[in-house]
């Protein structure tokens, strides 16, 4: 029996699929070096007293103690909480409502969708700057209303420390709600048309169909939207920089800006590391319940 050599022997494990493995090197490197390596590096160095340069002089939880004792960080967290809760609720409500309106066989649907979504194409810097201008008390909305005759009207969120975060919220929602609308719309379109027919045959009013039937069916879409909004919230940075630079005073500081300032402006690296580790922790707190809901119980193929 003539057996040609080379093909009868089992090749080495490592060499099997070699091209695919070589092609995956960038992915493996990114996953291991950047996402795992850099994250661990930062977490480790957050327990040191690194100032201008990173050094491995461990000081336990000192940086975290200092962090939670700093007023600026506390203001940042409070702002993030307000911004987060409001933007989560409002974006979901607005996004879903607009999607539901557009799903009602509206003429010029594409035009409406184009208008509602274009802010998402703009950067946070552009968004922040244009809303800074619109909310300018001397020329913007406040002045317009005063010109109409209501001379005592006051609406200057960017100059009022108590409500400045809501000024940023206005811009944030304007920029991001279109995306959620699109996702919700895709979710609505994914629902079997027969559901609507059945609801109509049963004589259920439209609004009730949405609340009782449609929204529960769209649970996965809502979860996706929720995760999307939430992971965006933690990263809020550019918008604040453009709109208020954290002001007035420190009234509109956010954690991401705190991290940047500590790391790159005030040469207090370990503080920045500690603050960013806190951001990571908060993301994990958001992600774990989601991962549990999404993947817990049943495994997906």
């Amino acid at each position, binding site marked *: *029996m*003539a*057996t*040609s050599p080379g*093909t*009868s022997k*089992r090749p080495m494990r490592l060499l*099997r699929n070699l091209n695919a493995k070589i092609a995956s090197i960038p992915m493996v490197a990114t996953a291991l070096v950047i996402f795992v390596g850099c994250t661990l590096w930062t977490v480790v160095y957050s327990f040191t007293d690194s100032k201008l340069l990173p050094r491995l002089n461990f000081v336990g939880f000192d940086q975290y103690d200092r962090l939670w004792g700093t007023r600026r960080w506390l203001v940042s967290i409070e702002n993030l909480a307000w911004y987060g809760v409001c933007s989560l609720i409002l974006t979901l409500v607005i996004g879903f409502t607009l999607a539901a309106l557009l799903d009602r066989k509206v003429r010029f649907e594409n035009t409406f969708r184009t208008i509602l979504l274009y802010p998402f194409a703009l950067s946070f810097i552009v968004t922040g700057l244009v809303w800074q201008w619109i909310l300018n008390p001397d020329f913007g909305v406040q002045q317009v209303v005063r010109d109409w005759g209501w001379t005592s009207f006051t609406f200057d969120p960017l100059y009022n420390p108590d409500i400045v975060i809501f000024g940023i919220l206005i811009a944030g929602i304007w920029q991001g709600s279109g995306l959620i609308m699109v996702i919700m719309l895709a979710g609505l379109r994914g629902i079997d048309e027969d559901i609507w027919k059945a609801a109509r045959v049963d004589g259920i009013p439209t609004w009730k169909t949405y609340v009782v039937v449609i929204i529960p069916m769209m649970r996965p879409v809502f979860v996706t939207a929720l995760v999307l909004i939430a992971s965006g919230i933690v990263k809020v940075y550019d918008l604040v920089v453009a709109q208020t630079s954290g002001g007035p005073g420190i009234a509109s500081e956010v954690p991401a800006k705190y991290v940047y300032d500590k790391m790159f402006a005030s040469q207090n690296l370990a503080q920045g590391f500690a603050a960013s580790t806190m951001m990571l922790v908060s993301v994990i707190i958001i992600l774990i319940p989601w991962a549990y809901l999404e993947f817990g119980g049943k495994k997906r193929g």
Partner: protein
Amino acid sequence: MTSVLVKDLTLKFGALTVLDTLNIDIPEGEFLVLLGASGCGKSTLLNCIAGLLDVTDGEIHINDRNVTWAEPSERGIGMVFQSYALYPQMTVAGNLSFGLRNARMPKDEIAARVARAAEVLQIEPLLDRKPAALSGGQRQRVAIGRALVRDVDVFLFDEPLSNLDAKLRADLRVEIKRLHHNLKNTMIYVTHDQVEAMTLADRIAIMKGGVIQQLDTPTEIYNRPINKYVAGFIGSPEINFFEGRIEGNHFVTDDLNIPLAEYAFQSGKLDRPAWFGIRPEHILSGDMARDLPFSQEVEIEIVEPMGSDTLAWTTLGGHPLRIRMDGQAAVASGTRLLVGFDPARGSFFDAASELRL
């Protein structure tokens, strides 16, 4: 001469054994059909032979060459897929020549081979078309042509007809048979359709749970199924089964007492619990049933006229019974009818091992 040899082939996915120590010896020019329900491992086996799946253990030889670890293209096989898998962005000519271009064959040789394959398959006018512009039958020819141009020894078919409607399926089945008749290549054909298997195959391998149950000619499998599973799997309408005991010269079940008559036992006759299976078409009725070793009058319950033949449902000694009759048989539900059969045409299986007795 052996064309394809599968030796102790085993495939495991983790703890799951998908193929278990398979052995098949396929002589040159044979049309072998791998038949089984979905999940039986038939497509997996074909993919192993093609080299698209790495085996866990065992060997595959094609034309006396051990190809267990060879690339699919080095095995001398061509494959026709269920979806035909024509490259949508290439013309028919491009599809046919893709393998040859990968092998860096000279241009004029490629052109000659494509032309020859197109002639054999009568697709010359289609060479410049894209697959999207072809009919189902034309697609199949191009898919076969892709194997043909490479001048392979073995054709592998992975359920090529199961996506099609019934009429086209019947046409293309004949076409494949004609092709095999003309080319005389070894062909391995996977299907879950027993009609395809019976009509196309020189031999059929019936698989279940990653194991070959029976490997034999269609007639042999049909007439002498090796176990109860094969008997039940092959044949439509399904074979009638009776559970009972062999006692002396009779098979006894509930209130029936069937004589064994001339039944040829493989391993000697012994009293034991057993199954008896008899195919619906081996049950005769009316005058023809009178002289058979076993006959009894039954009441017809449901009649399904199908044109070419008629299917009747009844009960025999408490067991449901299917009878296949002539298409013109005038029976109505509710009528009483004498039915009978010769047990020698049926099959006995051991109750425990379910193997043929």
